[in-house]
């Protein structure tokens, strides 16, 4: 089932949770709503489910207006961050609940209900827990039960609110891989909320990045990571280095670095910011001609498994920059704290600091000045 959201607005008192959301979700897609806490992502999910009402705007399921439909008539599956399993029921009864509360005319017989629950238990590979109570299970098991319970009513959309937020790192990694596999099997339209960018990048087909009740960018994991539309997206997804400088007549100067920025032809000494990912930086022993490098000193070297992270102190303003490289590459020139180096960004993006002028961001790829 496809979902269309149009000009959705929701306020809580004076707080605007959603400031005009437009979003289309295709049938069978797995979409992540990603953003910091308070950005409105959970509110949006709850409005899609019908657990919350929007102040204005429209929601359509398969092109049909669904905003007025009661939550029990929307045929959605909802998975809560804290599982919300029924404490006084066994795992079996939890999963069977949605089948047992159906109106008599649509209710399955006891034998069919049992078969259906068994089928779901084997899908989540927890058949042996059927007789247990939720308080007897670990967090990961509870969340899988919650998912099976949501799937029991054969929903057309699966909505997950920070489904792995309350789990520890190892279980979380396992479960999100498992969720991705499950989605590939079932092909059910799914929307999940997360504040964990790694989770969104790994699991989702498309990512909707939200901030302050608005959508900052919609795109595939690669799109939002490689070509962020706004400074917020840049900062929120992955680590970044920020270089401050000024744009003037088609060039941006960042300390000793001069970068062409033809889009900012008309800028006159406008403050600008350049974003560089730690892995998009080359470190040289000698400066290059033509203002393409920044002088810095290595202040710290940390080995993080397969990666090496170097902390640099920029000579011009004393700001810290981070560089990441593989261990193989580090081994070719093992820099030590105190070594003088020259920073050469391979790829950077420039945004003007003056927000009143809506310049497009500039992409710059290393050489070719």
């Amino acid at each position, binding site marked *: 089932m496809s979902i269309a959201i149009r000009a959705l607005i929701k306020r809580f008192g004076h707080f605007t949770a959603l400031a005009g959301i437009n979003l289309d979700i295709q049938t069978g897609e797995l979409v992540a709503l990603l953003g910091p806490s308070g950005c409105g992502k959970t509110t949006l999910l709850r409005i899609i489910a019908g657990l919350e009402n929007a102040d204005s705007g429209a929601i359509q399921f398969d092109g049909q207006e669904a905003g007025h439909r009661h939550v*029990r008539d929307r045929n959605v599956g909802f998975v809560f961050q804290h599982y919300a399993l029924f404490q006084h029921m066994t795992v079996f009864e939890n999963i069977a609940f*949605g089948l047992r509360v*159906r109106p008599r005319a649509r209710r399955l017989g006891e034998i069919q209900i049992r078969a259906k629950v068994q089928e779901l238990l084997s899908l989540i590979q927890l058949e042996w827990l059927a007789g*247990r109570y939720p*308080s007897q299970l670990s967090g990961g098991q509870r969340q899988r039960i919650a998912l099976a319970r949501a799937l029991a*009513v054969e929903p057309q959309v699966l909505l997950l609110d920070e489904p792995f937020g309350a789990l520890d790192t190892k279980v979380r990694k396992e479960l999100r891989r498992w969720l991705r596999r499950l989605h590939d099997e079932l092909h059910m339209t799914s929307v999940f909320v997360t504040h964990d960018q790694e989770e969104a990048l790994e699991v989702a087909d498309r990512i909707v990045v939200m901030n302050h009740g608005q959508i900052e960018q919609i795109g595939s994991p690669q799109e939002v990571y490689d070509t962020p539309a706004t400074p917020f997206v840049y900062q929120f997804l992955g680590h970044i280095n920020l270089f401050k400088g000024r744009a003037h007549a088609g060039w941006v100067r960042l300390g000793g670095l001069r970068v062409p920025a033809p889009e900012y032809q008309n800028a006159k000494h406008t403050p600008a910011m350049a974003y560089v990912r730690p892995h998009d930086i080359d470190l040289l022993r000698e400066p290059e001609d033509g203002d393409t490098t920044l002088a810095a000193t290595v202040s710290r070297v940390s080995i993080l498994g397969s990666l090496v992270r170097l902390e640099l102190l920029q000579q011009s303003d004393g700001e810290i920059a981070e560089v990441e490289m593989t261990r193989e590459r580090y081994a070719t020139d093992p820099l030590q704290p105190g070594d003088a180096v020259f920073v050469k960004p391979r790829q950077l993006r420039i945004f003007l600091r003056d927000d009143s002028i809506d310049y497009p961001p500039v992409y710059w790829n290393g050489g070719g000045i």
Partner: protein
Amino acid sequence: MLVSPIQRAITEPPIVRRLLIGLTLGFLTLFLFLPLAAVFYEALRKGLGVYFAALVDPDAAAAIRLTLLCAMIAVPLNLVFGIAAAWAIAKFEFHGKSVLITLIDLPFAVSPVIAGLIYVLMFGAQGWLGPWLAAHDIKILFAVPGIVLATVFVTFPFIARELIPLMQEQGIEEEEAALVLGASGWQTFWRITLPNIKWGLLYGVVLCTARAMGEFGAVSVVSGHIRGATNTLPLQVEILYNEYQFAAAFAVASLLTVLALVMLAVKALIEWQAHQTRRAALAAKGETEG
């Protein structure tokens, strides 16, 4: 008893502990156990014959019936009200919520005598509704309805007060989950909410029943003390006592005490049961994860 150095460092010296325990026990003995024992001693002093004669006396029997009737009406009424109020407060956001919570506490704050007087003011011959009630030949004051009303007023907060924090702590996620799964409001209430609050609810019912049977002040004001008709057990005790029928007074008092003790035992049992359920769950959880 072996005391590790750490325990010694964080507990009081033995002398202080013994003193505190002794003080508590002494206080309880003097002000609770002794009076309680005195009730039964006085009741049985003139022999079992006198004791049972006092209980089967028609006036006493009528008082027992009235007391039980009052409890049987007041407790279910407060049960329904308590669940409704706690549900509204714990599960919805609305204006004037804090005012409502304060209002529910009002019967705790107001003296029971005042509670009784409120009903005299409303339903008495000179009260607001008195003339109208007299014209339609409806008797509330100095009759059973007045006693029931006074009892309901006084026992009003018990169940609601017990449930509000419990339901607030539980939140509404389970109910939301049930709704998303297609359950109706009633199904959600019977299958999810009620099982989750059952221990707290039982506890509140027990407290409410104990208070409904033991209430004196408010009932005394509205009852009119008509023997065999509008006397509850506590009022019957007072009348017998004032008439110097000590053995009979204490016999009825002992019956009331037994009812209170039974309620106390039920309450302890409920607490123990709830505790066991929790412990079993925790133990089993440790087993799974261990």
